[in-house]
């Protein structure tokens, strides 16, 4: 599909969007912590993919390439003046639009008390995660939520694997401090 696009068949691009929009949107949502911001960043990511796809040289996997663009788009957005000065009222954890996909009902959820405690725990973690500096948050998301290997994270974020590990360690220490008593 990529080669076809590079050979001039741009009509194939909607298909490419359809194939990747879920992972891109989800990643943007995790990083941005807001549905509208995620929508904006995910769209912008595909605009960039459209513009740069002709330069994709197959040196890395396409997924890694997309992740890199999405992460950088989110980074730009986070560091933009508009984002910094905007009063964020929507928590990463909140789902005011009711947009989150229904989760599988597991056996542990059968007890309402357990379910509530788990939900509180999840909220506390997401809140702590949201309070981390943007770059550290992105590393945690890529490693712990997206389950990407260190080498790929290094590629996505444009840093050395050792740097990824040391920053992840720092991020986890910060997270641990912020979750003290909650877990």
């Amino acid at each position: 599909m990529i080669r076809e696009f590079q050979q001039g068949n741009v009509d194939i691009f909607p298909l490419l969007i359809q194939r990747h929009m879920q992972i891109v949107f989800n990643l943007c949502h995790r990083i941005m912590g807001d549905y509208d911001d995620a929508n904006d960043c995910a769209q912008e990511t595909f605009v960039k993919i459209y513009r740069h796809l002709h330069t994709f040289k197959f040196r890395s996997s396409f997924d890694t390439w997309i992740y890199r663009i999405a992460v950088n788009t989110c980074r730009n957005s986070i560091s933009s003046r508009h984002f910094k000065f905007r009063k964020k009222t929507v928590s990463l954890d909140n789902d005011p639009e009711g947009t989150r996909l229904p989760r599988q009902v597991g056996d542990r959820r059968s007890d309402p008390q357990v379910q509530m405690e788990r939900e509180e725990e999840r909220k506390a973690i997401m809140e702590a995660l949201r309070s981390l500096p943007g770059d550290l948050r992105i590393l945690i998301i890529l490693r712990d939520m997206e389950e990407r290997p260190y080498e790929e994270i290094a590629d996505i974020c444009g840093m050395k694997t050792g740097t990824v590990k040391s920053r992840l360690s720092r991020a986890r220490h910060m997270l641990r401090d912020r979750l003290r008593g909650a877990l």
Partner: protein
Amino acid sequence: MDCRDIMELLHDFARKRLEPTLHRQVAEHLKNCPACREELRRVRRYYDAIGREGAVPPPPDFLDATMNRIRRKSSPLRRLLGMIALPTGPGIPLGAAGLAVASVIAVFLIRPAVLFHEGSRPAAPGQVAVLDTVKEPMSVHRIRRVLRTRADSIPSAGQERATDSLLAKSYSLRTQMKDEVGATANDEAVTAQDTMEIALNVLTLPAGDESAVRSRDEEKSLREFSGVPPSAVLGGSTATRRIEHWKQKIPDIGAVVTSQQGTITGSRQSGNGTIYQILLPREQYGAFIRELGKIGNLKSPGAADRTGKVGAIELNLTIQGTR
């Protein structure tokens, strides 16, 4: 390994991502260390919790909205801007590099109308009608709308009114370049004129000495000169080197104009820039713009693979049609 080492490994241990030997060592330590076992319990609860974080689907109109955005952002003018890519290099913060180079790319600051003509004025047959330069930052769509309104409002000799064909166009666009690569200026509204007069302001860059180590004052003045905000950290010699690099790449305006059957009808110095007035056959306009767009080839190797380089560039373009 002590507890501190073990704790560093617990995340990978909990997810079974350690090499077998290391995994066994950690497991052995855990047998005899309640503190690390407690930490492992926390780590597992953490993964349990984030594993319950459900996926969020994009809105139903995501595909359509994205395609519309792509079409919108692929408008001709934006494509021209996009051709002016931003270089990056090791040792220079991406933001600073982007910003600095975007400033240096002022080599193609095209800002004629405000220098040659102030405000709009009526056009008599055979004369040039000029519209205001739009100075405030706004979207391309908004600029087009404003210009069309202004063109309509100019009474021409014989009480004719300019209607569909703009006698002059003027764009002023200040935009975040980011990593948009793609684009060419809008020429669709230029109609039915034999020649166009285009004024370019080509910034003259100072001679730089790559080996020179600049003093802080020189550095400061260099920054001011190149328009880099004081917040952008850029070493003096590095900045000079960059400027020199781009200076060498600037196409010869005379050659570009001649190759498009145009003539330079006048030029003058203005500040650090040279203002050229160029008379160009209307049908050559597109090709001329494409030639200017060759500056897009200046992007550094691999730049297109990267994203997130942000810089601002201001571009004013006036196209004057005679009637």
